């Protein structure tokens, strides 16, 4: 059973038709990587998977996304509740300024009305452990999140996303601002995390997609050209355009 099934997604900025009918199904306990040239609509597409796209003025999306048997574009669905189910981590780490490490992690839970100190503390610890950050910050939970290194900040954002127990974690080029060591920490982390949450990651780094994902999807000019097991996409893709892109002979 798929954990997320996007069907025929179209996305627009005003009259600009950016995502042109992409369908994608992801399995539980898997990392799905989306690759494709810059500007092809990868970020726009994954922002449709938690209804973030429509927050941009003038932007609109069509299609359906089935998560847990429910269409998140259904009539009575509250977009905010969707974003708890479908967490997101962005390219630039964005811990909330002026907030401690601890508060950064539990902010989502606080917003849902959770006040029990013990619950908050145990969720913070568990989330930070899941994000492989606990050992590095357990003695300074009260210091500002922004005082951490870039790689640590990104893992803090992952912990923040995990704290509300999402089904799916969307990651938009989460390591592109990080050095190789911080990058490999996050890559290692993903292979453990996928046991808990489904992961969809956009990456412009093909070697990264090859290393960490189970399924790879290749997008081009707003369309999905091909998706399949990562090992076949990178050794013997079916489509010419995929072949050209991943061998660097594009355009």
């Amino acid at each position: 059973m798929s954990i997320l099934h996007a069907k025929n997604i179209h996305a627009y900025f005003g009259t600009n038709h950016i995502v042109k009918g992409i369908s994608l199904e992801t399995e539980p306990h898997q990392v799905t990587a989306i690759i494709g040239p810059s500007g092809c609509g990868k970020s726009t597409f994954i922002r449709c998977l938690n209804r973030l796209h429509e927050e941009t003025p003038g932007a609109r999306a069509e299609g359906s996304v089935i998560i847990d048997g429910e269409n998140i574009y259904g009539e009575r669905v509250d977009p905010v509740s969707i974003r708890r189910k479908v967490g997101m981590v962005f390219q630039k780490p964005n811990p909330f300024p002026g907030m401690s490490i601890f508060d950064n992690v539990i902010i989502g839970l606080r917003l849902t009305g959770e006040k029990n100190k013990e619950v908050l503390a145990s969720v913070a610890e568990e989330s930070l452990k899941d994000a492989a950050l606990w050992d590095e910050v357990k003695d300074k939970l009260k210091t500002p999140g922004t005082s951490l290194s870039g790689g640590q900040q990104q893992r803090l954002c992952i912990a923040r996303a995990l704290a509300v127990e999402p089904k799916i974690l969307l990651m938009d080029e989460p390591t592109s601002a990080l050095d190789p060591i911080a990058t490999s920490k996050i890559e290692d982390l993903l292979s453990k995390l996928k046991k808990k949450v489904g992961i969809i990651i956009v990456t412009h780094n093909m070697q990264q997609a090859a290393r960490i994902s189970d399924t790879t999807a290749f997008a081009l000019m707003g369309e999905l050209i091909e998706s399949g097991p990562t090992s076949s996409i990178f050794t013997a893709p079916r489509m010419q355009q995929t072949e050209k892109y991943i061998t660097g002979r594009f355009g």
Partner: protein
Amino acid sequence: MKESMFDVSLRELKELLLRMSDLVERSIEIATTALEQQDPHSVHKVFSLEKQINQCHLMVDAQCLNLLALQQPLAKDLRLIVAIIKINTDLERMGDQAVNIATNTERYLKQPPIKPLVDLPCMFAEVRAMVRETFTCFVQNDVALARSVVKRDDRVDALKHKIFLDTLEVIKSDPAKIEQGLSLILVARNLERLGDHATNIAEDVIFAVTGEDIRHAPRVETMIY
């Protein structure tokens, strides 16, 4: 489109492999012609060719390793390099087999011939043609030709079998011919191995071009008969 640095390295690598296959082809030609014409005077060339082949063997491997480490090729580029690494091994062994044929020929020609050679020249022709076709399909990415090379190997195997049996009869009837008979049997065996290496290369070409691995697949022929 301008050739990228990677494409240049890939082209140079292919050229090196072609030089190597040319050396292999020449050494097979010399070794088999010596036996066919019962004239051992040029077999020493096979030994020096083998040294050059070994040099190429090392160079090809080093270049492949570099390309893998530095360029991290994918898809058809990755398949091509993996195929070249394997083809390189086969070519080097083919050089060794040419040397074996040369050595067996020298030994055989130390005494007067024990029998007229009938099937062996056929096998020479078959194997040389097979080797040439293998190299052609590599140069031209010709999958259809590669598939026909793979099929051709059955004929080589059949000829080897026939030479084994015929030579065995000659030996049985006259034990004085054992040593020379054995040389002929060994040459047939060396040729059969050459055919196997050519087949491997053809299979690697098919893999590099299409991504399809046809090794160990049951052949229609063997399923029918």
